[in-house]
């Protein structure tokens, strides 16, 4: 089983205040520490679990500058076999369709059975790259996957739906799965793995290596335009409900129902 797993390096916004940068189109990330996107971490673990069960090869793919190498090698330390990092300032990373196009170029032409991504990136929250990647590769996909059972030439997956429901679908391989958090328990990188990871292949590719034209993946041809980022204004509409606990619960429930929240 040849598995590709796509991972993204994202800022940890829990530690520092989020501020929009001077040009209003990005977040000032100078105060953040960066790490692997949470859902991608589960995708890495799932890829390694599948490899451990049925054998095969796990290739890690990521896009971004050299700062991401520690994150990539951590995935290799946990059991990934090799990695590709795509670095090219010409790529318009704001547009998930163009990101998918670049990732697809890295996967296409290689023998693959499964491509795993996280179901959502914590920074932009788009949830689009995985699905767009399947489309670009011309293979089936399942999103928000909570359980994977690999079989001969196919895969059975359990998708998370709203309201605690699951949908079970079977896909022919090759396929793309976007992995939901909580599907497994990501392992820690063992020390010996960290040592071995230093010797594993990490290829750095640009658009030319991938055979892509700048026009295909740059801002000019994008259907997405980032106009402006802003911090929502904080407004206060707190209402204190008075009374005995039973009364308070009743009033609260009534409000939730009327507000269409239940």
């Amino acid at each position, binding site marked *: 089983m040849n598995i590709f797993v796509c991972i993204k390096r994202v800022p940890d916004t829990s530690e520092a205040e989020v501020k929009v940068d001077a040009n209003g189109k990005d977040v000032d990330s100078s105060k953040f520490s960066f790490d692997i996107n949470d859902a991608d971490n589960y995708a890495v673990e799932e890829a390694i679990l599948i490899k451990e069960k049925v054998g095969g090869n796990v290739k890690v793919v990521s896009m971004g500058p050299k700062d991401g190498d*520690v994150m990539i090698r951590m995935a290799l330390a946990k059991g990934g076999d090799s990695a590709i990092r795509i670095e090219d300032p010409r790529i318009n990373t704001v547009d998930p369709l163009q990101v998918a196009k670049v990732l697809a170029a890295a996967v296409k032409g290689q023998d693959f059975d499964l491509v795993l991504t996280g179901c959502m990136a914590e920074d932009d929250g788009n949830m689009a790259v995985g699905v767009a990647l399947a489309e670009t590769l011309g293979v089936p996909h399942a999103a928000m996957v909570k359980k994977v059972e690999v079989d001969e030439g196919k895969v059975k997956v359990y998708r998370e739906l709203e309201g605690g429901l699951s949908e079970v679908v079977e896909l022919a391989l090759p396929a793309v799965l976007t992995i939901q958090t909580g599907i497994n328990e990501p392992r*820690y990188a063992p*020390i*010996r793995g*960290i*040592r071995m*990871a230093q010797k594993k292949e990490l290829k750095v590719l640009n658009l030319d290596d991938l055979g892509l034209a700048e026009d295909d993946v740059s801002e000019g041809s994008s259907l997405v335009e980032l106009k402006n980022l802003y911090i929502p204004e904080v407004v206060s509409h707190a209402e204190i409900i008075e009374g005995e606990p039973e009364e308070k619960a009743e009033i609260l429930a009534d409000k939730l129902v009327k507000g269409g929240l239940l």
Partner: protein
Amino acid sequence: MDFTLSEEQKMLQESAREFALKEMLPTIREYEEERRVNHALTKKLGELGMLGIHLPERYGGSGYDYMSAVLVWEQLSYVSWTQTLTALGHGVLAGTVLNLGANESQKQKYLPPLCSGESIIAVGAVEPAAGSDAAAIETSARVDGDQWVINGSKNFITSGGLADTCLVLCQTDKNLGWRGIALIAVDTDTPGFSSHPISMVGDLAGDLSNLGFLDCRVPRENLIGEVGRGLHISLHGIDTARLFISAGALGITQSCLDASIEFARERSQFGKPIGSYQMIQDSIASLAAELMAIRWQVYYAAYLKSRDLPHAKELSAAKILASDLAVKASEEAIRIHGAHGCTDDYPPARHYRDSILMTILGGTREMHKLTIGRELLGLNARS
């Protein structure tokens, strides 16, 4: 001169930090309140290869140098030094001692299960009347046929009550002084062995015990190395323990600093965050400045030790400075947190309890100053 950490070292740091935050932080309070040891940690750290991080790969260790080990110890201690000491202190002390002093078959026997966390090995050196003056030990070992017969007692033995085996520093012939001292492995199920936990100010989720040996009989081949080398190889282990403590003190200080910064930004009094007052900023800036300087001293000692270069005064300096800083940092952090800092709802209280121990274990600051003085003056105050 290159001050940057390698990618590999950053990965070690990250892996240890993630482990500490996920495996230790959520339950540390519970273990401390109940004064319980989290036995699972030892096993997990063994599986990850952190227990024998500085020990050779052929004996189940991970084969990293002391600089890398310091990075891991620092990250784990960031959350809890008592659990770090308990989970892998025996790897630091007994692991180092065995790697230096044991013969090949002893290494094969003891080190792999030690590195994997399957067995815990304590080192019994300190006695009621022999603390800093380790050569004054009175625990005796005499030969009877093909056995050693051991009698005496040991104090403040890290994980002494948890250990499967204890490497006991014994006097084989009082007339020989340090030349008569031997290190002998005693399994803790040997008849005549007893252990009694000590209630300490800190190390609440750990074990420091007093040990008793009453006519404990063990095979002659349990002698580690040879008679006369016992003190030397034990001191080598203690040397590594000093580095471990210094690294732990950095972790504690960083945690106190981070907690203080977070609290000072969030806690408002008189209409603004307390961090905007100059006296709080002074406290935080001073701690940060000292940590920056002392961290490099600890790393430098680790660098020298990794290369087997002389490092006695550098490590003694690191141990004094780092452990004193940990005490100061936890005190300052408690002050910044106010009454909250005196509760276990915030990290500084537990760091305060553990940091006090750091100033004593691995040698008091007075003893370390004598070491630095001896190195500089060429005069030994102890002889």
